[in-house]
């Protein structure tokens, strides 16, 4: 596979995002607002209930704030465009080109995500005026955190791609999408750390679920809930989920491509 077209796709996506300037400001603004609100909520909860599951209040606020910053890049959902393309039939044009459409979408998402990550810098800087953030546990943890974010991105992308590919079979997937989003936000640890789940089977399931690979893995490493050898197994689990979702997404795409019904003309 020639890599050049995909580099170009990513570059174009990056500069395309740059043209929507107001969107950048509203994005950052909404993140800051949520950082503020969540820090209030957690502070109030901690005041009444004390420390939970071995996570201190500063660690919790760090966790919640970083989760919101990660939202900026995980929330890109570049695969969404596939749904539009299938619905209005312009997928035909992409399918006629000598390219792999899933990888084209991946490249486009990478471009968009790189642009979105640039928003993280001002968003992080401004957040520091609102809340105190703990530094990563160790330098090693900081590095592992970045790797885990990257792997979380891959898992998240393939999950989005799977959802979008289902459009080949049923044009309306809004309900399913909502459900998956709800389950994902609960089980990924983006809202509440999985450590707060009642210990037992539910917590075990949450930790084992692929969604945990998205937010829980990097954030647990950052706040030092996962250390030493556990970091390796956490990253390893992410790799496994990235691989499984990747295989499922590409397999599903192959099947979908075979029975594509082009809308219109």
């Amino acid at each position, binding site marked *: 596979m*020639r890599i*050049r*077209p995909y*580099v*170009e*796709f990513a570059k*174009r996506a990056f500069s*395309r995002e740059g*043209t929507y300037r107001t969107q950048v400001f509203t994005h950052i603004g909404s993140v800051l607002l949520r950082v503020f609100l969540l820090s209030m909520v957690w502070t109030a909860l901690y005041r009444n209930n004390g420390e939970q599951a071995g996570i201190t209040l500063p660690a919790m606020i760090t966790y919640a704030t970083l989760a919101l910053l990660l939202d900026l890049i995980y929330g890109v959902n570049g695969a969404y465009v596939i749904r539009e393309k299938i619905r209005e*039939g*312009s997928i*035909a*044009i992409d*399918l*006629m*080109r*000598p*390219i*792999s459409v899933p990888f084209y979408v991946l490249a486009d998402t990478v471009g968009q995500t790189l642009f979105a990550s640039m928003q993280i810098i001002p968003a992080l800087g401004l957040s520091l005026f609102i809340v105190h953030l703990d530094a990563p546990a160790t330098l090693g943890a900081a590095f592992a955190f970045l790797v885990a974010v990257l792997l979380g991105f891959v898992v998240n992308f393939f999950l989005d791609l799977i959802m979008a590919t289902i459009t080949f079979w049923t044009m309306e997937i809004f309900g399913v999408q909502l459900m998956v989003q709800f389950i994902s936000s609960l089980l990924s640890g983006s809202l509440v750390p999985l450590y707060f789940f009642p210990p037992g089977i539910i917590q075990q399931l949450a930790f084992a679920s692929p969604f945990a690979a998205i937010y829980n893995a990097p954030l647990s490493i950052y706040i030092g809930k996962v250390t030493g050898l556990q970091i390796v197994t956490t990253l390893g689990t992410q790799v496994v989920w990235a691989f499984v979702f990747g295989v499922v997404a590409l397999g599903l795409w192959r099947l979908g491509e*075979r*029975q*594509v*019904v*082009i809308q*219109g*003309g």
Partner: protein
Amino acid sequence: MIIRAEHLTKTFRTRRRGDGVMGTLTSLFSRAYDDKLAVRDVSFDLEPGELVGYIGPNGAGKSTTIKMLTGILVPTSGECSVNGIVPWQNRTQNGKQIGVVFGQRTQLYWDLPLKESFELLRAIYGIPADVYERNMAEFTKVLALDEFIRTPVRQLSLGQRMRGDFAAALLHNPPVVFLDEPTIGLDVVAKEAIREFIARTNRERGTTFILTTHDLNDVEKLCDRIIIIDHGQKLYDGRIEAIKRRYGRQRILVAEIDGFCADCEIPIPGVRKLSQAGARVSFEFDRERVSADELIVALAKQYELKDVTISEPELEAIIREIYLKGLGVDAPVAEALT
């Protein structure tokens, strides 16, 4: 041959939906399907350098055929190949050797200036620098792209956009190009420019074209050969001249008669008076039964003729008849006409 379709068949399967609330509810659980035969046993061959009109009424199966040849749709049965490649088995390989122009949707990148779309296509198709430069220079000149090459595609007029789309489709020197209603919505001047560009590319580069259109002027000006399909089946495959000879039997003769004639009639079998407006009288005659000569002689005997014009049947009128009534002959006979 460069394009081959053999017994190409495509069936679409759609979920049956009931009417109203109850219908919607039952269709949620029922597994009833409707099969629609979009293309039925269509076969044809194209030689390199041919420019063939592929025509038929709306819903005839034209686009479905094109989509099978471009590798987007998998045939339900039958086979096809483009330049030796089976499109659906090897979509990416096939993609490199075909160009496509859709009148109804653009392949240019909406947000980008035209020039950037070309640059992106250059990367997608891996076009060598010299080929790219040469083609850009030629297309810029022939299609007058200069005036709007820096404009974002969404701000282009339809005529400009189509010129951009043509350049985009041919940038990688594809031996085969599919045109799907390339002149739809264009004004007369833009249509003519596009037709000229197609003819020129076909002539100078030997590019094979399949042209799908509803504007039969496109076909008449560009193609020697047409394939007509309707209800998914091939009705006719042959030269335009042949179909005109065979089906265009009725001609129109308009005579201007000196002096008044209240009710001009010509009592020859095969001749029918169509209309009369003052001294201008129109007759329709069957070329097989009456020659134009005979008709004029008969007219001249009775009246003083000032002027006579005979009009050839328009392809459009013939095709309209075929769409409405079918060929009126069996398929093998139609085949033999070619």
